[in-house]
Structure formats: C-alpha cells, structure tokens
C-alpha cells in the first residue's frame, strides 16, 4: 500500500503543469493614459477598462484594451483619434504580451522590474522594454509605470495640417490593480 502511495505521489509530482493550473491574477479596470504635449495644444486621454492578466508562475503579462474606449477632453480630439489616426473600426484593440524579467511573485512590498514584450496597435507591432513598479499587498498586485513611444512606429497617418498638434513622442502611463483569478 505504501509503495502504491509513493508511486502515486511521484507520478502526480512529475505531471507537467498546464496553463489552467498556473496561478493567475486579473485586472479588469486597468488604467492607461496617454499625453501628447506640443506648443499648439496638449492632448490627454484615458482608458479605465483595460484588461490584463498575469501568469505568476510563467511571469507572463497580457494586456488588451478597446481603442474606442479612450475618454478625451474634447469630442473633436476623440473623433480624430478614432476615425483618422487609429482607425478603431478596423483595429479595435491594442494588445501587449510580455514577460516580467526577474519577477518574484512572493516578494511582499515593492519591486521594480523590466517588462519585455510586444505591443501591437493599429496593425503594427513594436518590441518594448518598460520599467515597471510592482507592489504586492496580500494576494493583490498593483503594477504601474510610464514609458514613451513614437507615433511613427505605428503607421499612424497624420495630415500635414495637423502635424504640429501632435507630439512625435507620446507619453503613456499605466496602472493595474490585480486580484486572484481562476480561468
């Protein structure tokens, strides 16, 4: 009987973990804001329903957002963003998939890590490395950071007349509050 039990536990112990077994956390209301500063005008927008999941075992992070859910101060800015620049009816989502380098999910408190991954927006993919602050409190995590990205990398066509209104480099800020998640 003892032999059977030993064989059973050894067998169970060697079964590879599937994705479903991995410990994950989810943020359903992540915030992503972007800022464009020029001498002509400042443009700010925020999306407060960004979805993100972290696989704590694999140290992988995935982010998805609806591009038409950004809120602007002015309706005309939003219209240009959706209709002319990002063409959100053709490219409704932006996606980031990456890995949190040297991430230790057991550390309670703050750790700063580099997240390496690919950001796809407007049909164009760019490799990004983002310095990220990760705060763990009990079973919850808060992930936040700021990075700069270039408009030209995403094949966004800005008419010459409006080129002066939009910065070449856009500042992006993010904050996600994660809670335990069972897929």
């Amino acid at each position, binding site marked *: 009987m003892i032999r059977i039990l030993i064989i059973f536990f050894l067998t169970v112990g060697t079964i590879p973990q599937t994705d479903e077994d991995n410990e994950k956390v989810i943020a359903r209301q992540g915030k992503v804001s972007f800022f464009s500063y020029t001498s002509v005008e400042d443009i700010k927008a925020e999306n*407060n329903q960004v979805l993100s999941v972290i696989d704590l075992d694999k140290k992988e992070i995935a982010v998805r957002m609806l591009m038409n859910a950004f809120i602007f101060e002015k309706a005309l800015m939003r219209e240009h963003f959706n209709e002319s620049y990002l063409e959100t009816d053709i490219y409704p989502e932006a996606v980031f998939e990456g890995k949190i380098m040297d991430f230790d999910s057991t550390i309670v408190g703050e750790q700063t890590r580099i997240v390496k991954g690919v950001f796809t927006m407007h049909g164009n993919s760019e490799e990004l490395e983002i310095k990220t602050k990760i705060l763990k409190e009990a079973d919850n995590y808060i992930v936040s950071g700021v990075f700069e990205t270039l408009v030209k990398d995403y094949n966004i066509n800005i008419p010459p007349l409006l080129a002066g209104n939009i910065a070449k480099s856009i500042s992006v800020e993010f904050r996600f509050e994660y809670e335990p998640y069972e897929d």
Partner: protein
Amino acid sequence: MVKNSSFSYMIFFVFSALFCLGCQRLTNEDLSSIEPKKLYSTENLISTLQSNTEYDSEEVIAVTGIVHEINTINKRITILLKADKAQEQFVICDMNSSQTTTIKTIKKGDSILIKGLLKGILKDVILLNCVIVKDK
C-alpha cells in the same frame, strides 16, 4: 497646389466633425433622455457580443442585471453587473458623474436597469457614461 491640399483637409475635417458630432457627444453627455436602441439582460448582452463580431458599438443600450460590485477604481464610479450563469464575466458600467447621488441608493445584490454607451467586449462587456434607469 499646396493651398488646394490644405483647403481640402480643412473641408474634410469640418465635415467629419459635423458628421460625428452626434455620436461623439454621447461620450460625455447625460444619456437620461436618450432612448436606448435595445434592451438586454446581462447574460444576453455577454453572449451576443461573444458570438457576433458585428454589434451595436457606439450605440446607447439598456441592460438589466444584478449588482456584483460597486467600486471607485481609478477614481471613477463603476458598477459591475453579473449574469446568473457566467460567473466570471461581467458588464462593466463606467458611470456618468451625474450619478453620484443615485449610486448611494444601490447596493450589491440589487437588480437594476442601466443605460450606457456600448463600447465592446474584452473579457467583460464595457459600457461608458452609464445612468441608472431604475432599481427594481
């Protein structure tokens, strides 16, 4: 030639601005007086958006559901409506700022009817600029 090109751009933007003024306005406007295009249950809304790539995006819709959570993440008032069957999927309603007082009368477990601007679905359905029509 350059002048013609600039003039064309100006005309284009003036017309597109006028054309879109109606739908863009809805992002910040109080939707209380706007008739919703369709009425859904939370369950129906989630399943409709999951199975169809074509849906009433950017339209005002009404949805009934049970309040799963009321939170102020990102300093915004948000109500999560749950369906009876799909426990892990919700309708996320980002509330209009005019709803601050009304929201105080709502609590977890209440059955309510909400109107909002449909944006789409990720894992959950997303509605912006929501107003509570009634609590049952």
